[in-house]
């Protein structure tokens, strides 16, 4: 009996180790993150948001499920086929979720960047009406993100986008914007994507940075 218990304990431990490498939480997150990053379709984005909502239910102390759920709604809010009301509805949800994530993990560069991204999405829903009131807020939020980590590629590429828009609006040079974009693209190229993915940390935004760098040339 004693022997059996030792064997069983050993078996159990190996099971635990296997789970520690990929708990149901991590497995679910990785699967859903991969789906979210791939898709542009509205129904798929809603499914992603729902899936992350289910994960949030079970893991209320983690910021990542809230982060990705918010990101899924932000992507919806950027969808060109939606009316401004629908965009605002999705973005209001995104904002609320990002706020919850921020409460769990304050001063997190990824969450602050996401909050700026939501503001940017609101702005792009009605640039003429909201440009003046929201562009300052968006820039300030990305500035805050870069204050926490000035090497965060997503914060850099978002800032690049805002700077680019400002430069176009004022008819001034895009050097500053392109500098941010280049910096972002370089960091994206040098990062260990697999390790970040394993840690369910955000990796998205590379295409955006590469696209901007291309535009700048």
């Amino acid at each position, binding site marked *: 009996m004693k022997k059996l*218990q030792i064997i*069983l*304990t050993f*078996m*159990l431990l190996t*099971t*635990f180790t296997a*789970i*520690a*490498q990929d*708990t*149901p*939480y*991590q497995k*679910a997150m990785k699967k859903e993150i991969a789906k979210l990053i791939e898709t542009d379709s509205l*129904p798929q984005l*809603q*499914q992603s*948001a*729902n*899936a992350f*909502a*289910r*994960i949030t*239910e*079970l*893991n209320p*102390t*983690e910021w990542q499920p809230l982060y990705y759920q918010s990101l899924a709604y932000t992507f919806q809010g950027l969808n060109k086929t939606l009316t*401004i*009301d629908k965009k*605002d*509805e999705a973005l*209001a*949800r995104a904002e*609320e979720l990002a*706020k*919850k994530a*921020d*409460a769990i993990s304050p001063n997190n560069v990824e969450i602050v960047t996401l909050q700026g991204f939501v503001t940017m999405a609101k702005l792009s829903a*009605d640039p*003429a*009406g909201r440009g*003046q*009131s*929201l562009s*300052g*807020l968006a*820039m*300030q939020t990305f*500035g805050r993100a870069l204050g926490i980590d000035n090497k965060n590629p997503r914060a850099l590429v978002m800032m690049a986008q805002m700077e680019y828009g*400002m430069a*176009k609006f*004022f*008819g*001034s040079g895009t050097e500053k914007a392109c500098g941010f974009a280049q910096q972002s693209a370089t960091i994206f190229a040098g990062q260990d994507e697999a390790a*970040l993915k394993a*840690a*369910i*940390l955000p990796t998205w935004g590379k295409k955006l940075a590469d696209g901007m760098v291309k535009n700048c040339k």
Partner: protein
Amino acid sequence: MNFGQVRLPAHFALRNFDKKQGAPMKNYLLILLLFAAAPTLAQTKISGIVTDQKGGVLPGANITLKGTYDGTSSDTQGNFAFETDETGSQVISIQALGFKTQEINIICSGNPVTLKVTLPESINLLTAVTITAGAMEASDEKKSVVLKPLDIVTTSGAMGDITAALLTLPGTSTVGNDGRLFVRGGDASETSIFIDGLQVGNAFGSTASNVPTRTRFSPNLFKGSFFSTGGYSAEYGQALSSALALNTLDLPLRNQGDISIMSLGGGYTQTLVGKNNALTASGNYYNLAPYQSLVKQNFDWEKSPSSWDSEISLRQKWGNAAKGKSGFIKAYFHTEGNGMAIWQKSPGNDLPGNDGRGDRIELHNRYSYGNVSFRHSANKGWFFYGGAAFSHNRDKYNINREPIRQINQIAHSKIAAVKDFTPQFSLKNGLEWYIKSYSEALISQNLKRKYTDHQLNHFVEATYYFSNRLIMVGGLRTGYSSLSKQMWVTPRFSVAYKLENQGQFSFAAGKFKQLPEEKLRVLQTNLKNGEATHYILNYFIVNNNRTFRAESFYKTYDNLVTYQGLPTAPANITQNGAGYARGFDFFYRDKTTIKGTDFWITYSFVDSKRRFANYETKVQPSFAPRHNGSVVIKHFIGKLKSQLGSSWSWNSGYTYNNPNLQGEMQSKTKMYSDLSISWSYLPRPNIIIHAACSNVLGRSNVFGYRYATQPDETGFYASLPTGQQAKRFAFIGLFITLSKNKDANQLNNL
């Protein structure tokens, strides 16, 4: 570091897992058995359809087996299906944005479970119907807005004056020789102004008669405003016509310094921002003398108007909104001084004058306003707000060297609690206490009169959403004045219904009371409330950056003050006046049809007659022109880094009383028209040059005529027109923002 983050969640997940199974750690066998047994049990298939209450399918609903990762979303037909390894009694939760969450108990035994789920609608404040009758909002956040806060400052012709920008909205009348807000046949005293819910006394600068005034407060203080042209909430009282609620900014974005150098003066504002608090301090000085020495004036100034002001505001927030409890406290203090001396000719020159210049009016004004306000959201749907405010206004007039001193003070404190009982139903309750005191003194004769009035008010307001389409609000405001020894109860009611196409109808009605003006109350302290009753029907639609608003109204007045003699020396004061105002107005705003251009057009028709002041019959008041219109255009030219603006305001003319003719108020001026232009140029993102000119066409507008009090030898009353200060008014200013972020500017401050 990243590594650590991976391990931690795994550890938590395991612990949770153990707790859920309720297994004592020593009982390894049982756990292992469960582990081993689970995969061998049959999976349960759960499928179904999600619909709304009208039977429409709901795609994108979230279906979850509670406490597990199992679940799915409904497809475009509202159908869903998934399988689970869980067994026994389970709970399925179905959630969709805009709907109430449903939970259903099921048994997982391997047999398929089929569900038909109907989700009831939940109230979504973002898209639900709002009451728009009588209301015009300026906000960046809400949907049913007519203006953005920025519009108030970029409207050409407004010259940065909040009131002047509001005068381009329907339901208002421009009275060029006054400058205050005149709403739907009401006089300027019938509008009350609030900052963060607390009343502002003497919100407009003191001035001589027929010299237009401005709002004392800079538009860059405010993040939004709520302007009601009638039928407003029980939260506001002592205003027969209109309420204007201004809400100050929460936290500014960044530390910055703003410099302004203008043709009329200059100023500096410094903003310091912390994580949860902010401090803004500013000082300004204005003097019209240099400008008036360059440009010919129609007014005979001895000393051009000059003023200084300084203000300080502190803001502190607390708590965390995501965790339920959070709040904000704001303190604001503003103080200023103004002075001017002007000569005004008397018609017929029958009064003693100096060199034929007429009456000399000298004015020194000192004004201070301070308020402290808070708001706090608590758990369980409670929300509290309130505060205290104090305004002190002292006018020292020297009329033909005869000194007169007037002091007006208002203290206002308020506390309100709102409870959301359900998402459909909320109840607001509030208490207010006002102390109003006024004194005037004729210094040389050592004569003084004054009064102090305590007013206690209670308001209650219930809001009920029948659905996202139908809302009803009912309120009751009760008040008591210690001076007039009168108690009053005023009911208010409004309802709104949203149509399929985003358009909506609202109806509002209510009774409103207001005590007479200070200058009359001090003569006769037992004067009672004047009364008004409003009925308003409104249609409002916003679609794709186009806004259309149509409104019709009917308003009756009762118990208005009437007297005999001149307004400066009223005799036999009674409250037998009555009258009505009725009409309709239209507003159309379009930001999309013409590229890069934003414009709005308004038209208001007002038919008003009332017996008030020293009139013996019901007459059309001078401040209520029948037809009013305005057009505002803003156009951005990227290549020129410029925003060009133009506004045109027009009305059909002001009535006036000509004593040479039979009857009262029988005459009307020619129509009023003013075309203004403005140009904002941004050479660098943090520098703005702003130039503006009003009445570019140089039209000579007349606002009325003043008549001699006595006829001349031929029995004729001589007259003088009341006109504009100058043909045109031109302005140029340079605005520089200094901050770490080189792109910040004052565009939202102009």
